[in-house]
């Protein structure tokens, strides 16, 4: 199940774990990424709070946690090569995986069609 937030993140849920990343639109807006900082495995994320940072040459942008839960895995390859987040943000450039406090938390988010129509 693929869902999108109005902050331009995507979540792919399998069971009670969701993979989180930034959308292609967000990556295009940010431009060339040169640094990313991810939460630590085991960290508790609270919906709406800064979870990760993605930095382009010009600016640092917070990526907010779209849901609450515990980080189970982070994409170390993306940390080593931040450009992968820019070139394949909805694939190899995923950011982290989170065990959802409430697996139904994704129900209120946009599906692909709704996000495509969402004004950007």
């Amino acid at each position, binding site marked *: 199940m693929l869902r999108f937030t109005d902050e331009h993140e995507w979540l792919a849920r399998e069971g009670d774990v969701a993979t989180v990343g930034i959308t292609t639109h967000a990556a295009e807006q940010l*431009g*060339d990424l*040169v*640094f990313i*900082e991810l939460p630590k495995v085991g960290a508790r994320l609270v919906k709406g709070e800064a979870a990760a*940072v993605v*930095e*382009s*040459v*010009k*600016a*640092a942008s917070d990526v907010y946690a779209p849901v609450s839960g515990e980080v189970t895995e982070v994409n170390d390859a993306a940390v080593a090569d931040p450009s992968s987040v820019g070139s394949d943000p909805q694939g190899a450039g995923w950011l982290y995986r989170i065990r959802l406090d409430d697996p139904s938390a994704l129900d209120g988010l946009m599906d692909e069609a709704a996000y495509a129509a969402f004004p950007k």
Partner: protein
Amino acid sequence: MPFDALRTPLHALHLRLGARMVPFAGYAMPVQYPDGLLKEHLHTRARAGLFDVSHMGQIQLVPRSGSLADVARALETLLPIDVLGLQPGRQRYGLLLDESGGIRDDLMAAQCGDSLLLVVNAANKAADEAYLRAHLTGICEIAMLPRALLALQGPGAEGALARLAPEVAAMRFMDVRAVRLADTSALVTRSGYTGEDGFEISVPEDGAEALAEALLADPAVQPIGLGARDSLRLEAGLCLHGADIDPGTDPVEAGLGWAIPAVRRRGGAREGGFPGAARILAALADGPARKRVGLRTEGAAPVRAGALLFAEAAAGEVIGHVTSGGFGPSLQAPVAMGYLPVALTTPGTRVFAEVRGRRLPMVVNGLPFVPAGFKRA
């Protein structure tokens, strides 16, 4: 984009080239083209980049008396440089200072024979024009010229511009020359804001697009946005007014004392006589309390403008702050500039920058970060 954003004469060209436009100093400006900032930056260092800097102010000063020396003398009361000694066809960098010696703006002053042309920052141009009018109206006519300004920068700039006007190849760094380019009358200076050799080209608005197209027809020349303009100037250790220099900084601590020549310093023939002179001449003689430095990080995280600097990894007082910071594409590493107490400005000195609640080690680095490619001979 705000509906009331001003447009440069190259607006339609930017859109055709696929630029992402952003508001900057009241103008809609291209921040990057489809190639992206990293490629644009590296292309400029390797070949040649074309920048639209038409948002900058081009202020012409024409003497009422017919004698340019009258304008030069009057301008020296505002600007601590040698305007009287500026020869026709040459330009100098200068600083407009306020009464406490703070930097109102930085500019280029070109001697065009019968007039002076000042090129000032976009964000300050209205204030600069008003300030000049308040002080110089009796001496000269002051006009904000409705002209475009293009910058062609990089090791391939000379070759690309010389294809349109061979005589520019003979220009030296900071030379000024009137040249016919792409069927329009241009005023060309050999200068720029990237640390590379290059030219800034002032043309009438209706000739700007044809000139830009003629330059872009050269495969060595790519359009470059404001994003790369900023990373290029930061690697070159060049100040951005409003960030690295402002009314709260003076030329000496900013490391711009070189722009104040001996003739305006203590013991010089035209010593002082500019706003803030007492403080600035004392600072030149005694040395500043703090200085602008280059800073590199030990880790991969960029340190941005506004980050506070500390001497220690924990606790301790704030000792300075970062004024510009980002990623240097040519260095493939973060770079920054900021102010530190003079005792901590020796290259190699370790300090700490606070980023997202943590202190990251940084090392003082000489400026520029990349060697300048100016045409000195």
